[in-house]
């Protein structure tokens, strides 16, 4: 059996996206900036894609800026808000401990430039507390950036509450919604979102394309200088085939969101129940306020990379937050932030199911993980000490 259970990493392009893209590779390859009709055809496709994308998140077309993906959108949103803040003498930013590195590293850069950043903690449920946000807001706060849903543990943040507070306090609110858009309903208007980042390949679109939503009136800072594309806010000839495909993928994902959420959540809960049957294991993050496709577990006494390699041998593609899979010495900052100690965080496993996942696949995953965890524990000195009572079980 071959099971792709790493849909938070990337997804397969949908047929709708491929079909939408092909004519703009094979036939209508004109440059949207050219004034002849052949170029204008590409321009029309671009603007139609902008309308589609805007509609899917409750925005206006002119509020959508196409980018190379989620990371670029995160960078541009945060740096723009920081530039606006600095102009007004406001250099305090609020974020949280479990953001994606595209956000965290941009904030680090700003800290070096004199900005002060407050990183809100999360509870063991992996969710930011609105009271903590309220307490952190200062006179000089220029931006709040909190992700919509976490990429590792799938927890969904109270975006609407956060947005409302920010709107009342007249503070810009950005959300990295890379894991949410196309998977759960997102509406920038009703959720008081000022800026939002998204990436096409997470919702069955192509890689290398994404978008930034910035509410009308927010002046963006350019990351790329050059031509006047994207209303002068992002230079470079637009990736027309990619953008057209992104719009088609998003439209389809949003149309199917109701049935996809129901289907995925049922399988997710089955998978969680199955894995929870493995002794000394624990689900990471809240069991309910999480993405419908995300399952994240820690297993005591084993290390994540060996778990992944052996699951790969069984045909299962998954990921882990262990240090060995990140190329650093520390396990995932997200797992540490929800209170998992190092020893346990190394034994983490993330499974993110696809829209087309089946019950049989979930059964196979449960059986395979159970076998591999048992096998690895069989020659783990950590497990031996735990069983012998030399050290105490944490999970």
């Amino acid at each position: 059996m071959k099971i792709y259970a790493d849909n938070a990493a990337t997804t397969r392009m949908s047929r709708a996206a491929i079909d939408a893209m092909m004519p703009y590779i094979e036939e209508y390859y004109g440059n949207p900036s050219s004034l002849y009709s052949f170029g204008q055809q590409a321009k029309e496709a671009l603007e139609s894609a902008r309308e589609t994308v805007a509609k899917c998140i409750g925005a206006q077309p002119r509020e959508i800026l196409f980018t190379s993906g989620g990371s670029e959108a995160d960078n541009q949103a945060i740096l723009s808000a920081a530039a606006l803040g600095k102009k007004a003498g406001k250099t305090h930013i609020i974020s949280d401990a479990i953001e994606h590195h595209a956000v965290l590293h941009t904030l680090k850069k700003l800290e070096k430039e004199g900005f002060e950043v407050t990183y809100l903690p999360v509870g063991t449920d992996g969710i930011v507390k609105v009271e903590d946000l309220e307490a952190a807001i200062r006179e000089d706060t220029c931006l709040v950036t909190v992700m919509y849903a976490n990429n590792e543990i799938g927890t969904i943040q109270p975006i609407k509450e956060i947005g409302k507070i920010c709107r009342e306090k007249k503070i810009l609110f950005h959300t990295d919604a890379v894991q949410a858009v196309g998977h759960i309903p997102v509406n920038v208007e009703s959720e008081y979102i000022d800026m939002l980042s998204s990436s096409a390949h997470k919702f069955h679109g192509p890689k290398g394309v994404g978008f930034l939503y910035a509410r009308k009136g927010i002046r963006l800072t350019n990351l790329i200088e050059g031509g006047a594309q994207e209303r002068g806010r992002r230079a470079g000839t637009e990736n027309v085939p990619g953008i057209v495909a992104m719009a088609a993928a998003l439209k389809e994902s949003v149309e199917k969101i109701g049935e996809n959420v129901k289907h995925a959540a049922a399988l997710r809960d089955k998978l969680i129940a199955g894995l929870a049957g493995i002794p000394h294991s624990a689900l990471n993050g809240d069991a309910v306020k999480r993405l419908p496709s995300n399952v994240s577990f820690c297993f005591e006494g084993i290390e994540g990379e060996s778990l992944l390699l052996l699951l790969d041998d069984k045909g299962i593609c998954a990921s882990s937050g262990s240090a060995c899979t990140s190329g650093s010495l520390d396990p995932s900052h997200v797992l540490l932030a929800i209170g998992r100690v190092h020893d346990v965080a190394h034994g983490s496993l993330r499974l993110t199911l696809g829209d087309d996942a089946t019950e049989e696949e979930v059964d196979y995953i449960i059986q395979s993980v159970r076998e591999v965890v048992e096998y690895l524990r069989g020659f783990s000195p950590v497990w031996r000490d735990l069983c012998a009572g030399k050290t105490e079980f944490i999970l």
Partner: protein
Amino acid sequence: MALYSEKVMDHFRNPRNVGVIEDADGVGEVGNAKCGDIMKIYLKIDDDIITDVKFETFGCGSAIASSSMATELIKGKPVAEAMELTNKAVAEALDGLPDYKMHCSVLAEEAIKNALDDYYAKKSQNNN
């Protein structure tokens, strides 16, 4: 390009000398769970010859493969020769390790030296 060489994957999938020696003449343990790697080596030594060796490892693919290969390299060897084992020899025998995984071979070398130290310590205690 795969992450690991075929040799590494072979020793990871089919680790040699896995287990425990209850009446070991030398036991060595290095690493800690905080860093994500722990290796434990058990030696049975007769007449200064390593007659049996077993290991237990908590760690990534290359940590398990390094332990397995290191035990193979010292099995049946005189202790003096085992003392000379380097992490480089372990990595080379595995057809190389990615740079950021070289510390796994270092742990394997240290675990074996640790077990040999334990053996020498026990031996001198018995002689006294």
